[in-house]
């Protein structure tokens, strides 16, 4: 696993979203959960309308899966799952898409490969990041970044990146 710090990174992403408990359906009925369904919905749209969103960077576009807490999340556990990409002209996206703006934050970024993509890896890696950078996470959202290096969850050689926003820090690097 490789770690790095991305400073002052903001995002304007174009994509599709879901709000609720994305695992509720999978718990009892379907093999796929709402996150898988959201990916399929997005990719089906893009297959039908190629070029609807010109994801950046050109050539090897990156897709971000964001998990975002809302005011109701603490009470009910429901939250938003958003999947989207950076584009040159986000406001020109088709009506089926929504724009997600994430404010500038420092991010602890971890590349995860193959078998490290096991259940609970988000928690372990987030804890690693806190220890490494001495700052608490901003738990209101988190990102996963997928590009051509990702070939499937747990596949040998498959890679994705976890982007964990850090809470604003003090001059000496400690959390405040």
């Amino acid at each position, binding site marked *: 696993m490789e770690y790095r710090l991305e400073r002052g990174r903001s995002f304007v992403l174009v994509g599709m979203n879901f709000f609720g*408990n994305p*695992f*509720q359906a*999978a*718990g*009892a*009925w379907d093999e796929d959960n709402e996150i898988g369904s959201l990916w399929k919905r997005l990719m089906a749209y893009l297959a039908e309308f190629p070029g609807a969103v010109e994801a950046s960077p050109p050539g090897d576009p990156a897709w971000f899966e964001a*998990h975002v*807490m809302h005011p109701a*999340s*603490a*009470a*009910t*556990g*429901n*939250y938003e799952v958003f999947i989207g990409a950076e584009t040159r002209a986000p406001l020109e996206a088709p009506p089926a898409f929504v724009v997600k703006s994430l404010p500038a934050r420092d991010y602890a970024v971890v590349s995860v490969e193959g078998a490290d993509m*096991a*259940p*609970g890896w*988000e*928690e372990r890696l*987030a804890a690693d990041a806190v220890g490494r950078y001495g700052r608490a996470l901003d*738990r209101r959202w*988190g990102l996963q970044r997928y590009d051509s290096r990702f070939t499937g969850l747990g596949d040998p050689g498959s890679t994705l990146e976890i982007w964990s926003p850090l809470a604003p820090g003090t001059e000496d690097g400690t959390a405040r």
Partner: protein
Amino acid sequence: MNDDDRRFASLGRALVRVEAGLREELDVAAMAEAACYSLFHFVRVFTELTGHGPYDYLMRRRVAEAAKEVAAGGRSILDIALEYRFESPEGFSRAFKRCFGLSPSEARREGRYPEGSARTPIDEDYARRLRSSGLRARAETAPLMVITGTPRVDGGQYPAGSTVAVVSIASRPAPCEGIPVIAGRVLADGEAEPGIPSVTARIAGGSFLVAAGAATIDVELARDLLYRTAFPISGTGPRGDCEIAILDEAGAVVELRIPAR
């Protein structure tokens, strides 16, 4: 302690927190805190290991405990609703109806409610058993099933060669026409019914909820999963009062099927 043990231990702490907090202010964030997980991860783990979303579970546990007091009589329904942290009688009534299909007032009048669909407490051991059993619930549709066999002796083994058993769990006949408690086999399409002493049951086609695992199943655990988790979450209920047990060669149950509305 491995990762799996830690997950169950975390879940167990959250479940204990729920039972302690049925009458208190408690939200999913506090449950996640008890588990020492982020909210995102907690929702995933809780749902995966119990079949319930954490908020769904909390609300169903509150309604289940409140329902006992509603049916018992005595205190006012409003007092009971407020004690279990419902903000209004209307909210309590909606939740109650969603869980049991009748209002608290009706349950009070009749002095009872469908206890079989009330969510009883889940603990760490239950979650471990559910996980190790590999039991999963699924919905499916199936055509009319005609089953021929012999009456089953209560408490006895299924007769040799039986591949399916129909178990009536109440006296109401629909949708199982004919003899409601038999063990035998499914008639092939167009196959004539054997004469006496065989008996026949017809299970109307339609929706079913099915609990199955990788091998022989724990029937009581499967019943709990279907009646107290899968049916309530699906928003449907049993259609009639019979269960169909699919048997392996040794007569052990490998699948439980319940007609659904």
